[in-house]
């Protein structure tokens, strides 16, 4: 079970050990503030936007084309932006740190 730290919009650090399939579902199951998952995880609502900690971005990988498209007009989007639902939680991501963008 990979451990993930979410830094919420209000600055809290929430540490989660989860066997959920992706970053969005792990956050929703643990009621992490600022991640809603309205579309259920199909890259259509952008309510799961996170910034991957720069130290982790290589391991996590960049946003796919559809994520980039969804986030293109978001003011808060950066090179480290991902839609949490598109980031699979694998054992390699144990220790991951992400910042929740929120609405």
């Amino acid at each position: 079970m990979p451990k993930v730290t979410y830094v919420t919009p209000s600055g809290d650090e929430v540490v989660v050990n989860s066997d959920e399939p992706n970053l969005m579902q792990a956050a929703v199951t643990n009621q992490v503030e600022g991640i809603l998952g309205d579309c259920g995880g199909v890259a259509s609502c952008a309510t799961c936007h996170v910034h991957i900690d720069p130290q982790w971005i290589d391991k996590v990988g960049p946003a796919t084309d559809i994520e980039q498209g969804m986030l293109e007009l978001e003011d808060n989007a950066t090179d480290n932006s991902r839609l949490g639902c598109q980031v699979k939680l694998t054992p390699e991501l144990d220790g991951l740190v992400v910042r929740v963008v929120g609405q």
Partner: protein
Amino acid sequence: MSAETTIAEQNAEQNAEQKKCVIVGSGHSAAQLCVSLTHAGRSGKIPVEITVIGDEPHAPYHRPPLSKTYLNPAAPEPLQFIRPENFYRENSIEMRLGKRVESIDRQAKQVCLGGETIPYDVLALATGSTHRRPPIPGIDHPDVLTLQTAAQADVIRDRIRSDRCVVVIGAGFIGLEFAASLRKLGVRVAVLERMERVLSRVTSLDVSRFFEAMHRHHGVELHTSVNVTAVDEVEGRLVVRTENGSDFTADFVVVGAGAAPNDQLARQAGLDVDNGVRVNEYNQTSDPDIYAMGDCCNQFHPIYSAQLRIESVQNALDQAKTVAASILGKPVKQNTMPWFWSDQYDVKLQIAGVSTGFDQCLIRGSAKLGESFSAWYLKQGRLLAVDAINDARAYAVAGKLIPTGMCPRLELITDTNITPKELLQSAKEESNA
């Protein structure tokens, strides 16, 4: 006065203030109403006491996967809950699941279920819709199924085997998504559509043709302009008969022929009902203490100047937020742009807006298999909606344009050398000019 009694008194006072909110239905809009109401109490007191009564046995779960990823019997996917169980417990939300509300007593302000009554100060109807079974002889055969709830999806998933043969009646989103799921699992499937093309109620000809080509490419036996006249059982299998004389044999049949709003409770209670429970811009019914939201309700839409009954997750969520705002005493009018998605094979369709009534459709890009493109729907030069096929950028831009009434110059829309972002810029300039 001891500190203890003061607190008790304060609590009593708070409880007296706490409105009792009963939600009928436990789907997407019910869950969102719980989230929005309790969010207001983040910093302490939860302003409302909530009871949810739903006839499905599960806590609210995501419905869209049922026709998409949920159906693989080899790797059964669990239900995806909208919020975890803790959420309801921690917020003292009473979940009365597996229970059906039978009537509303507006005089006494209570709902009735199985001999029991539950009082309310405010009532929210979140009863959804029910898939129609067209009036065809044999349509009620136990092997003719609908795909709307987890229980129904479980029955279907149990029956899926690669040597099976399935007939789908109706080529709307759910029918087509289901067909795509079956093809991915190697199941033979025929789709029979009464209209001349698939998705005819919701898309333009080009988009319909694209989806038809895609399904045929993936091996769906797709027939349009066919009228199903009967479903017969012959030697333990079903035979779907059509007007033109061709028969289709199936191990089971799934009907995806549209849905009707669950507005019976409201009708019996004497509320205004017309293709759904009629609500005002605050999602209030003709009884100010009763709200309705989601698939079951019908509302005037300010962007489209039309009465709409929308079946989508977005609509359920946004209307629930509107209801919450009113219950919390900070009413805001519902005015959000509808959006929707459908995933079939490797194609992601994203729709911004509602295209009904369009008089012009511009195709941006090439509507060919394997390509991404978008269909831009206009009425008298006004942008109504955009269907984006594997083109999230077009979808995102449409989402900025439609609510504001802006539209780029038409010749730019079809020019793929112009990026979607530049289209947005052009539209802004147009509206300033």
